């Protein structure tokens, strides 16, 4: 069928600069560039270009430019180009449109409407280069109070398992399968070096990564891929994945062609078989079922590690979080509307769920109203782009945040949203060995470590500016936030006052 879609990008090659070295030909995972031997010429098929800039970055002579194809549709506020193009795609395929990464629609980004406080005169700001500035965070359920034996000064209250992270930033769930093994190795090394955690996602833990088990959150998802006793005991924390911000309410499907021998071994499924994660856990149809799974996992690991639950931020998130806390979870991870994915139906990614800022504020408020905030740690995910987003999330009430897109961008990702194709030119979201060799775990870990280090420094500067020298004094401290350009209702949910008040 002839496609009625025009190309999205337009590639310009400066003939004066191009030396026909074919770097672009080799770098592009989408086979945009080709070399014509007879004419000693490089051709580019713009219609295949996804705008990931791999060729542009690697062209040794700077001969390439990628522009958005300046297609001028007749102006229409309703039938915008995306609506037209999506309709054409479906008419040609009859399928559910897939996409990768997070929601790209212009929903309000509440982080950008929240501003932070700083000290002036009445209390001194603190210089983190000269004074201690503490970011250390413990993930895990805390008792409401401590009982201490007055004779021995020993703590008699049993303390649930706690996991220390040196920065309040963890790498969010990305499975081996959705990303390549070198990417997971980069994440694992960086997490270990920075004193934080990475998350296996639902794809199991590759045998090479058992060495990093102490820095791993091991996920138990609806497909139970890769879950066995060794897997559970290898991880530092266990996470029951109920939902994901990019695709609340639906499952996942790793096509058989991506199930390579390594992926198959790690997921514990036959080579080449489809890996289907059902939409719900078929043993969790209610909150009491969830409690059973939480305690089954705790039993399986002798109550030595926190067991958390990850959910997508949906309308009733506060009540659900309260139920999860009461069901015995040690932490709750909430993944917002802008959370990323390796593959999801576009219509669901773009229209289901609520923004993390509102969900986080609602959950923290609700847990405090019920007096059970101590019982769980809260991890915010989905849409954290920089250290300001992190610190604002902490001030709204998060114990820590998960980042995924930022981490992949640190490794080269240019957010072209084509993860689901498996052709990632940056070698990230692909199992193609020719492509995924592009990530060197040692260099990858360094890039990720730099990102965490840079953000930590910035968080320390902002904290010090507020006259605070321990992150816990900002956690849930919404007086250090003010709203700019939000409605009364939004400010009420966020528990934040307008700037100037």
């Amino acid at each position, binding site marked *: 069928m002839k496609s009625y879609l025009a190309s999205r990008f337009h590639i310009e090659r400066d003939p004066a600069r191009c030396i026909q070295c074919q770097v672009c030909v080799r770098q592009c995972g989408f086979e945009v560039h080709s070399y014509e031997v007879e004419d000693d010429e490089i051709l580019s098929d713009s219609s295949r270009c996804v705008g990931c800039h791999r060729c542009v970055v690697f062209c040794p002579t700077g001969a390439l430019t990628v522009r958005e194809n300046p297609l001028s549709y007749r102006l229409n506020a309703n039938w915008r180009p995306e609506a037209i193009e999506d309709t054409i795609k479906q008419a040609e395929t009859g399928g559910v449109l897939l996409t990768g990464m997070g929601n790209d629609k212009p929903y309000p980004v509440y982080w950008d409407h929240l501003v932070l406080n700083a000290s002036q005169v009445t209390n001194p700001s603190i210089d983190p280069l000269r004074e201690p500035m503490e970011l250390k965070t413990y993930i895990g359920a805390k008792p*409401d109070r401590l009982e201490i034996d007055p004779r021995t000064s020993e703590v008699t209250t049993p303390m649930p398992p706690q996991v220390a992270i040196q920065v309040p930033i963890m790498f969010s769930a990305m499975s081996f399968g959705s990303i390549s093994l070198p990417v997971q190795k980069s994440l694992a090394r960086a997490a270990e070096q920075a004193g934080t955690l990475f998350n296996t996602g639902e794809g199991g833990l590759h045998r090479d990564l058992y060495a990093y088990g102490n820095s791993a959150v091991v996920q138990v998802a609806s497909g139970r891929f890769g879950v066995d006793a060794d897997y559970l005991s290898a991880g530092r924390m266990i996470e029951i994945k109920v939902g994901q911000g990019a695709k609340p309410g639906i499952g996942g499907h790793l096509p058989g062609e991506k199930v390579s021998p390594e992926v198959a071994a790690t997921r514990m499924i036959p080579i080449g078989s489809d890996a289907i994660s059902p939409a719900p856990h078929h043993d969790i149809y209610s909150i009491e079922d969830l409690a059973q799974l939480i305690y089954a996992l705790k039993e399986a690991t002798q109550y030595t590690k926190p067991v958390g639950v990850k959910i997508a931020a949906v309308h009733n998130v506060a009540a659900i979080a309260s139920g999860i806390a009461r069901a015995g979870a040690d932490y709750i991870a909430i993944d917002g509307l802008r959370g990323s994915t390796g593959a999801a139906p576009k219509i669901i990614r773009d229209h289901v769920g609520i923004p993390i800022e509102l969900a986080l504020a609602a959950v923290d408020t609700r847990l405090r109203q019920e007096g059970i905030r101590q019982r769980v740690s809260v991890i915010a995910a989905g849409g954290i782009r920089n250290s300001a987003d992190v610190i604002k999330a902490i001030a709204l009430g998060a114990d820590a945040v998960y980042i995924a897109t930022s981490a992949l961008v640190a490794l080269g990702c240019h957010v072209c949203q084509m993860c689901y194709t498996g052709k990632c030119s940056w070698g990230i979201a692909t199992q193609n060995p020719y492509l995924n060799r592009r990530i060197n775990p040692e260099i990858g870990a360094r890039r990720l470590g730099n990102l965490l280090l840079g953000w930590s420094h910035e968080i320390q500067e902002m904290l010090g500016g507020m006259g605070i020298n321990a992150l816990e004094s900002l956690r*849930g401290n919404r007086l250090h936030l003010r709203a700019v350009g939000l409605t009364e209702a939004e400010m009420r949910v966020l528990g934040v006052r307008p700037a100037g008040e």
Partner: protein
Amino acid sequence: MSTAGLSSYNNPYGDDHVIDACSIFGVMDTTGQCFSGQGAINAIASMHDRGNGLGGGFAVYGCYPEFSDWYALHVMYMEAGVRADVEGYLAGHFHLQVAEEIRTRHTRAVGEPPQLWRYFVSVDEFASPGQSPDDYVVQQVMRINTRFNGTFVFSSGKNMGVFKGIGYPEDVADFYCLDDYRGYIWTAHGRFPTNTPGWWGGAHPFSLLDWTVVHNGEISSYGINRRYLEAYGYQCTMETDTEVMAYAIDLLLRKHGLPIEMAAAVLAPPLWSEIERDPSPRARLLRSLRQVYPCLLMNGPFTIIIAHEGEMIGLTDRIRLRPLTAATRGSRIYLSSEESAIRLIEPQLDRVWTPLGGEPVIGRVNNVSLGQQAPSLGVSVA
């Protein structure tokens, strides 16, 4: 956060929390001997320049020996006409032993005082089954402070009293005729509020039951301290950061039964790096305290003097951003923003030192339970 609702009737100046930079002073006699407050008044007066006349106050322990079994409620009525309602409420919720106006002296330097009344009450059978008299009193204080317009219970302990208002502390002392009182602990405060006109309820000391706090500093963690305490039923009606300090101490010491040394390690904990370096079993205790009570870390610059029956504690924030000097002479312990204030009233000192950040200085009466055995030197003030 329902701050709007509370503020509408409890925070007439519409500020969120009052930022202070102040003078503080405390003196106690560890034998439990009561003495005149003239020294404390002179000492705080010598630090006049640290305040700006917008708040001064004193806490006196051992001042009501005749009524040592009864809770002494000091109530300020900012608005006329409420008193009858409040007294009706008090009569319905306590055994009211004495109701009297607090004796004051006309002082030009203290402007526009509210009506100031004192009630000696007992709880007896009014508390619900299982509720301690102390818990009952706290509950009633919170109710009165939120339910009645412009009414504040600003002192609610046994055999102690808080006296505070707008003015320099020496003028406030004069106004309340404090030269007539004797106590075994005196704490004093001169205030420099930086973002409000100052009001009577916002002066220090802050108190709940017989716990009092005088505070110099600003608590940057106020937002989370308050949210945490509200979950335990404390209602922050005075809208100042010192109030959360008082409630935090009440929660940790009275409700959760922690000794003061451990409460200090919650309010001004050691750094994580110090805890990790500590090889002793104490590290586990300190780690647990920080893990369980992160919301009560008081972050930002502060010096506080906390007092309650038989005990006076001085503490600075963990990186010591506000001054505190401690000294002893004989059975007396002194705590002050400035050493000069101590030297003024006691030139010869046995020991003078600057406590480390986060390290509490604790003075205790020698195993004398003052609730049962009141010092005999108190003066009736009826």
